[in-house]
């Protein structure tokens, strides 16, 4: 596997604010990556830098090994679906779908038609008259049917209901399986998307705070509950991220349990449960209740 995106010291300042602050990472080819973080964390700015829509203040971005800025060779291989895409006045859904193949050499019209039907996307009404969800649906259709080698989805489903989002995930997985490519999915609905992701980047206040394999991240913490004395006995010598107690019962969140630890916990009568990716990330990105909790 080779790196399809390489960022090195990438920084974007708006006046005194660093929207993207000294970010370095490499994403490998042929995988679904998650770009996660709170609203305003810098996800969109980062993607704009990676797609050549904005100039970095400092640092470099390389996509397909080259700078994306004003680089038609690179940009023709990229599709960027934005949360708030602007369209020309009176542009209708059908115009969007008609012009899309001009920009995306690997566009699949049959797939687009299937998706239009599946999402019930209205093609005959002006884009600006559509609801947010309907506009999102058209964005999602373009993003999927583009089959671009590198596709960015930036909060692609604003206004889409749970059923439509589920459809998006299912289509994404099925089509990705048949036509492997690189997907970068930016979202704040972390738990919904968590299982689709292979690698997770988390941005907080412009800085990259987590860059990890999703499986490793998931496995990095477990919550154990049971009788307080048993729980405390088990906790000895372990890194405890979180601890709560109710009468004689206690629950702790500990890092990295191996299979043997799990067996030991089970035979001590402790109940194990998953710590979701979302919970882990909330701790790490300064959720008010988590405070300065250290994770991983």
């Amino acid at each position, binding site marked *: 596997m080779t790196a399809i995106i390489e960022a090195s010291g990438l920084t974007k300042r708006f006046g005194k604010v660093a929207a993207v602050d000294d970010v370095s990472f490499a994403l490998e080819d042929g*995988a*679904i990556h998650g770009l996660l973080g709170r609203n305003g964390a810098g996800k969109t700015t980062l993607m704009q830098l990676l797609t050549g829509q904005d100039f970095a203040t400092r640092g470099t971005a390389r996509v397909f090994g080259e700078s994306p800025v004003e680089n038609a060779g690179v940009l023709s291989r990229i599709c960027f679906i934005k949360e708030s895409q602007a369209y020309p006045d009176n542009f209708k859904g059908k115009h969007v779908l008609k012009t899309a193949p001009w920009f995306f050499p690997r566009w699949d019209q049959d797939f687009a038609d299937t998706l239009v039907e599946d999402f019930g996307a209205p093609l005959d009404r002006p884009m600006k008259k559509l609801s947010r969800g309907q506009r999102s649906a058209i964005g999602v259709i373009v993003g999927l049917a583009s089959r671009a080698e590198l596709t960015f989805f930036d909060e692609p489903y604003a206004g889409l209901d749970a059923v439509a989002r589920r459809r998006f*995930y*299912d289509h994404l*997985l*099925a089509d*990705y*399986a*048949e036509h492997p490519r690189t997907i970068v999915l930016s979202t704040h609905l972390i738990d919904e998307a968590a*299982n*689709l*992701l*292979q690698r997770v980047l988390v941005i907080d206040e412009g800085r990259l705070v987590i860059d990890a394999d*999703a*499986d*490793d991240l*998931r*496995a990095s913490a*477990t*919550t154990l509950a049971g009788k307080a004395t048993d729980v405390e006995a088990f906790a000895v010598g372990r890194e405890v991220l979180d601890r709560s107690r109710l009468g004689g019962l206690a629950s702790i969140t500990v890092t990295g349990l191996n299979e043997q630890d*799990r*067996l030991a916990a*089970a*035979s*001590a*009568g402790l109940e*194990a*449960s*998953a*710590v979701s990716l979302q919970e882990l990330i909330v701790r790490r990105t300064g959720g008010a209740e988590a405070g300065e909790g250290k994770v991983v």
Partner: protein
Amino acid sequence: MDDGRPLFQQIATRLEAQILDGTMPAEAQVPSINELAEFHRINPATALKGVNILVDRGLLIKRRGIGMFVASGAREKLLEQRRGEFQSMHLAPVALHAKALGLTAIEVQRMLAKEMDR
């Protein structure tokens, strides 16, 4: 699907369960990575990792260009391993509960015999 373990391990456990209960007998073809990924709504790389656990242990066999199959003797191998884990995984928690309820070993034995006669 979530018991706190990494997803790929949960996938492996599910496949093992299907081998154990005979849903996937020896020589049967196993769903492809992509089918598993779509069914469980997980990343195909995660599904592959889960499957590879079974491949590494000789429970599944990859035949290039054809697919993946349950190895002959896979069920027996798993049974042996599971029997080894039975005490620590299942009996230890039962013993704990029984103690908490004030049941004696004899009483538990009787209940167990009754359950197993069903």
